């Protein structure tokens, strides 16, 4: 419900919001998130606390405004941001630099831990200018993969000064986003509507598989992989369309779902309840896609932090979820879609979901937190 959403105007346009990951055995919902800004003279990485929930679910009082814990200046627009672990955040910059920031929780400060200057660049890495925007970053501690406007793919390790592997000219168009498919394979999307799989074990500088949209090759801006069924991949395009791909078969998407009216900037499967999907867009909307087959079976999210075990305990349900995203039966009306922002104006650039909590940031310089997503 909308009344559970808490807004805070932060006097900077927000390009990224990310929850801090929870420790493996955590039962609490997330309480800390990071934001990055863009298009400011002075861009910043900030860490926010949403406070101690205390007796959650009893008081019904969720209107705790996010509190700024600490922030640090960031050179260039924050293009992407991922937590490497509980303390470290990897940030992609429009200058082409990739920085690892450390959040010191004892004294609430941020510091730059490691930096790869001009990991992405045009023509010549050593000239004073010529950095190319790093558009996407994905982490699988200690590995970090970045992509950029230069069509380059970098593989870094958090503890190594030089890139482990670089694929120059991996793509002739701009790479917009990257995610891990498996520990050694990554997925990239580009500005001519292609989805590519790269196997980092192979020395060949070619993708192992190319998928693409038919017709007008609408640029793809975001990609996420189903957390349990790794062959199911969701992408979002410039026309706001949501595409679901089954990478085991074919080279085209399994289904194309009409969604937003402008660029879809991010798509995320719910990490522990992947029949829920969230997308946000330049048109100022944020959609919740609910493909759970039986409404009465909706799980309770209140007391869980990490992966859900309750929901997938029945094999039958598990089966139906498999088909939920891949079924392209037009008569299927089970997909429930809700726009979570009623009076949309400016772009929603980023969102993140963890447990029952949603955080998103906008060009209207506000961050929003909903801690009762499924209430």
């Amino acid at each position, binding site marked *: 419900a909308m009344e559970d959403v808490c807004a805070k*105007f932060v006097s*900077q346009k927000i390009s990224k919001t990310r929850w801090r990951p929870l420790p493996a055995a955590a039962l609490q919902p997330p309480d800390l998130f990071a934001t990055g800004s863009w298009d400011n003279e002075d861009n910043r990485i900030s860490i926010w606390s949403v406070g101690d929930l205390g007796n959650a679910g009893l008081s019904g009082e969720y209107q705790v405004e996010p509190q700024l814990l600490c922030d640090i200046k960031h050179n260039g627009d924050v293009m992407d941001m991922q937590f490497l672990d509980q303390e470290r955040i990897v940030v992609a910059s429009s200058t082409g630099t990739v920085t690892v920031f450390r959040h010191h929780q004892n004294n609430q400060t941020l510091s730059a831990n490691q930096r790869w200057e001009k990991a992405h660049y*045009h*023509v010549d890495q050593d000239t004073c200018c010529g950095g190319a*925007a790093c558009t996407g970053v994905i982490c699988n501690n200690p590995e970090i993969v970045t992509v950029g406007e230069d069509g380059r793919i970098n593989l870094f390790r958090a503890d190594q000064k030089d890139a482990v592997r670089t694929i120059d000219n991996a793509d002739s168009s701009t790479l917009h986003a990257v995610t891990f498919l498996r520990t050694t394979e990554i997925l990239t999307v580009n500005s*001519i509507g292609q989805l590519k799989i790269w196997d980092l074990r192979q020395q060949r500088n070619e993708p192992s598989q190319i998928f693409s949209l038919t017709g007008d*090759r609408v640029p793809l801006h975001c990609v996420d992989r189903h957390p349990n069924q790794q062959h199911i991949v969701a992408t979002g395009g410039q026309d706001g369309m949501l595409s679901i791909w089954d990478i085991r078969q074919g080279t085209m998407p399994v289904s194309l779902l009409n969604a937003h009216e402008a660029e879809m900037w991010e798509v995320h499967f719910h990490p522990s309840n992947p029949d829920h999907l969230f997308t946000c867009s330049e048109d100022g909307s944020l959609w919740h896609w609910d493909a759970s087959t039986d409404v009465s079976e909706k799980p309770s999210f209140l007391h869980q932090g990490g992966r859900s075990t309750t929901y997938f305990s029945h094999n039958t349900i598990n089966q139906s979820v498999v088909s939920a995203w891949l079924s392209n039966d037009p008569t299927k009306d089970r997909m429930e879609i809700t726009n979570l922002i009623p009076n949309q*104006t400016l772009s929603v650039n980023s969102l993140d979901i963890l447990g029952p909590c949603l955080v998103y940031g906008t060009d209207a310089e506000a961050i929003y937190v909903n801690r009762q997503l499924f209430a």
Partner: protein
Amino acid sequence: AAVPSQVVPGADPSARQLCFAWGPAEVLVCETLFGRRGGSPSRGERGPGRGVLPGVLTGCVAGTGEGGPSSSRLFVVRKDQDIYIQTLRKLFNESHGIFIGLQRSEEELAGKSRKAQLVQVSKNYRSVIRACMEDMHQAAISARDPALHSQYSTQVSILSAMELIWNLCEILFVEAAAAGPLLLRLLDWVRLHVCDVDNMVREVLSSENPSKHELFWNVVDVFVLQGRMDEARHLLSKEASANPTSVNMYKILDDLMKKMPVPSLGNTQTLTEMELKWQHWHEECQRYLQDGTFASNSHMESICKILLGDEDAILEKKELMTTWYHFLVTRLLYSHPTVKPMELRMDLFLGGEGSPEPLDTILMAAFEFEMHQVIKECSVALSNWWFVAHLTDLLDHCKLLQSHNLYFGSNMREFLLLEYASGLFSHHSLWQLGVDYFDHCPEYGRVYLELHIERIPLNTEQKALKVLRICEQRQMHEQVRSICKIMAMKALRNNRLGSALSWSIRAKDAAFATLISDRFLKDYCERGCFSDLDLIDNLGPSMLLSDRLTFLGKYREFHRLYGEKRFSEAAKLLLMLMTAHIAPCSFWMTLLTDALPLLEQKEVIFSAEQTYELMRCLEDLTAGKSDTEKFQDDDVESMKVEMLRLALARNLARVIVKEGTLEGS
């Protein structure tokens, strides 16, 4: 209307004319004497008129100016100073949402609900101002630097004045309540904004024995002056219990205060009823005053006089009211509570001396229902366009400004919105908000947007996409083309042919697509292989954008067919590229050379007819060249031609034999 003016500091009086130029981000620069003399103002020093006049010469000295032979300093002027205040960004962003909501709101709503809606919008604007004020106040408290502290404090008082004016306008213009309720609203307004006495009230009320406090009667007076009868009576009852001798006197005053007729918010009583009750009560007060009931207690006597609306008695409490508008409202309350809005002007007079402050002038204009004067005075007094733009827009939605047309631009609402939005566009980050304001300026909004949007620096593709989306949604084709061209040029400079091509495809810019295709072909000729195959192989329908792009796609297809050893298909395609004039003439030699290996295949590929056509292509090519060109061509070229002729002749011989054999059998 007079144009506000200001002397440019440092202007050279001997110069025959002062030269101005608009710089980037709406910065107006002019040459000054600064730097020619020593001791010029340093960067960031405030001009004398800062914070007073928006849209005119407020600003700071910028530029280094040290040393050089013509080191005149630049005096940089900003249109809207407040746009750059970090804390106010919350105000700009949040009010943007309210503004959009108001534009989308339904005009059709019937009278009362429409008014309720507009009042709510007004309240929303005010609550944003108040929230901002609170933030600024916190910032002032936590600021260690005294200069910063005073800067924040100034902002707090400016915001406070803005809220005061807005609230009054809301009561008088937006809500435009009937006589009785209007007075109640004005009392609320006074209570909310005359905060100087709040500390005193708090001190007395929290003391151990309030009635013994030296300021006790002051607090009672404050309550009476603000019409807070219940609170006044509560305090008095404490005093009464401490003075058993005069308990009767207290009782009578308490009774009078209790019986004072209050205008109701509902429609339960008519104006005449109220007037009648008031007259009756007034006479009762008069009676008690005249028979000397309160003669023994000057405090109570003066309260009774106040209840009777005695001007001298009220003016005696001037320090407790602090402002003339408090006095005005108090006097309204006790001398003529059923005043209609239009009658307010009758009661307007001032207790103060000297020339009025801008705030006084504005509030007075509001009390006189001079809406345009309010807007004009606010434009002059405040250092931002935010206030007047939003207030005027709201009043316009209340249908209060329709009759007024400017002799320039379209109307006042649009003029002010354009000014405000232009200010937003001059800001490196707030420009996105400006778009929606331009959208709601029917006359000039579009032109302003077109001119401003082209000047947004595009440092990343993502930002370009956002700007592009704004243009595409509004069918601004010219701007779409120019943005894509800029991005394509950038990509080209960075040797990113693939990206460059996708940008020109997006803009449907055939000329540029041709240019890039030529670069691809040139690269191919130089390196013997194609770059960016992933793109060229996936051109799809966009291949039809330009002839050259079509050729590029088809030529690459030829290479693929050849690579897959589908020779006859490849041969057919190659020939077609020339005969259908898809290939540029400059490329024919390359194509014919590409035909060589096909002619040399063991198996015959080109038919007799195709061979003749190839021959004609070759002859056309060589014949088309002038003698001088031929002369300049090196041996390699003529050798190539000879080789081709030979190969073609041999192929023709082979094919005639083959075709003849086939026909014969």
